[in-house]
């Protein structure tokens, strides 16, 4: 096996082992599953003879009003067209995703600062194999959690006489690819900066920027600013996981499965590009604190 991949896989195994021993990972999972429990039971309570009515449950009333306000009523209708599971999946996925990516950013910065990466680099490990290990860990644990979530939601659907729906599968896959992109961005933020705090700030900044652009805040301004912001949004969208998530789901709605898979391919390619950029950055910057 290639020396770099070998080193990455050895470190990744240890990282996965460490994460499995860490209470943080279980707390994030528990929060995710607890949220899904409340959302599913809330959804069941919001069903009357005419079907789902978010006004019937206080939690769903709050969620429904917020989502309709931010994205429009059509978005809300589509989101709950096949039941609660798409929405429940998004919400339950966030705590574990945030835990994994934040812990990567934090640990990478900390370990570089104390000289741990440098010590490993005296052996058959370089900066690239080190961040690849983080990436493998994040991907492996995401798959694990997604499987757990699917099992949990399937059981919940069975018990409540609901069904996951065909669109759920598409959401499941696109969210995984979106997470892949975001994990690579967390690594890029880590190698670009020189400490856990600055890396975290940069990473959160990137996510917020993508979210703001996705929600269209940049187009509120008028005139010159408006043209500038729309150009900026267009540029940012090309590397934004949220943009591709929206595109992929629109393709599914339009029944264009081929387009959906092409978008997944682009997302995978962009993940590869971010990893390659991280490789170049760490090669230039080195592994010294």
């Amino acid at each position, binding site marked *: 096996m290639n020396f770099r991949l070998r080193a990455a896989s*050895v470190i990744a195994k240890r990282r996965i082992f460490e994460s499995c021993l860490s209470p943080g990972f279980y707390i994030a999972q528990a929060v995710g599953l607890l949220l899904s429990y409340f959302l599913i039971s809330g959804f069941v309570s919001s069903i009357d003879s005419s079907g789902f009515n978010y006004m019937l449950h206080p939690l769903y009333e709050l969620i429904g009003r917020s989502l309709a306000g931010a994205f429009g009523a059509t978005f809300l209708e589509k989101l709950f067209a096949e039941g609660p599971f798409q929405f429940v999946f998004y919400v339950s996925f966030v705590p574990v995703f945030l835990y994994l990516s934040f812990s990567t950013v934090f640990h990478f910065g900390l370990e570089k600062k104390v000289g741990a990466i*440098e010590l490993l680099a005296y052996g058959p490990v370089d900066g690239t194999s080190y961040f690849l290990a983080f990436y493998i860990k994040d991907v492996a644990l995401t798959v694990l959690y997604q499987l757990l979530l699917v099992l949990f939601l399937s059981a919940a659907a069975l018990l409540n006489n609901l069904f996951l729906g065909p669109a759920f599968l598409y959401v499941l896959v696109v969210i995984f690819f979106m997470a892949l992109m975001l994990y690579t961005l967390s690594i890029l933020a880590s190698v670009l900066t020189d400490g856990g705090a600055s890396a975290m700030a940069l990473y959160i900044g990137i996510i917020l920027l993508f979210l703001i652009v996705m929600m269209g805040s940049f187009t509120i301004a008028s005139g010159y600013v408006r043209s500038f912001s729309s150009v900026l949004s267009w540029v940012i969208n090309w590397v934004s996981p949220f943009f591709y998530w929206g595109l992929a789901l629109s393709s599914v709605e339009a029944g264009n499965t081929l387009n959906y898979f092409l978008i997944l391919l682009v997302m995978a390619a962009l993940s590869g590009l971010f990893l390659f950029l991280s490789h170049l950055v760490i090669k230039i910057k080195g592994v*010294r604190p």
Partner: protein
Amino acid sequence: MIRTRGLVKKYGNFTAVDNLDLNIPSGEIYGFLGPNGAGKTSTILMILGIIRPTAGEVFLFEEKYTPDRLDMRNKIGVVPEKHPQGVWSWMTAFEYLQMFADLFDLKRVYKDTQARIDYLLQQVDLHSVRNKRIAEFSRGMLQKLSIIRALLHDPDILFLDEPISGLDPIGIKQIRDLILAENREGRTIFISSHLLSEMEKLCHRVAIIYKGKLLAEDNMSSLLAKLIKDREILIDLESLPPDLADSLKELPFVLDTTTRDNTLVIKVSKKGDFRKDLSSYLIKKNLVPLRIEEKALSLEEAFVTITNENIDMFTEIGGRE
């Protein structure tokens, strides 16, 4: 085994390493000496590929070495000055070494990796604490653990940065014995230090670096001979006439004299053996020398550590041989 050609490292306008040429053959213990800030660490980091040289090349095992040569790193063991235990403090010593054994794919070389780890732990008296968490280790224990980690994969070259710093006398002896034993097995050892006494006991050859430049490079005895400006001859007499010390100063090769009880301490020029002349002089004065001994100065006695203040002595040596 280790060769550098025109190695330069600049940080802005500051030149940390200036056109350094080193050539260390296989099986040698090579001491790299210099005061703090002389360029020792920058040189080691460039050789190891951790930092990129501004100019010059590094050759290891007769091949050009670049940071991408991960295959070569399997043949190198490194003990850094500071051991970042914080990240792995939750591990036991054995778990920590097992992690590195996995990284180096030790199973390729040793069928029983556990036995290899245990053997090395026994060598430095750490076997009894193999299941103790690293967080509970003292600085000396960490240093020993770091040396074991560096030796784990049976490297051909061992780089040691201040290996005995922070160790107690027993620890120093254990590490010294371990270094010598590893060298006897054919390992090339590169030690960076400012502790001359240890370098004297360990190294076949030393290099002295100052302000990024190589001031001297030689074997220990030659370097010592150059460093010591004059020698001391001790002569025991039955009795010491009061004017003897002063009268000896008239001899052209005598630089200074002092007395201690019935012993004459005569400082002479290092060029030549003057024992015979001194003996004849004393006999002419009807004095019988009971003992004539030339005192051998160790490098440590010349000075304990290399600092920016005493580096001038090396500068006076006049550069590389």
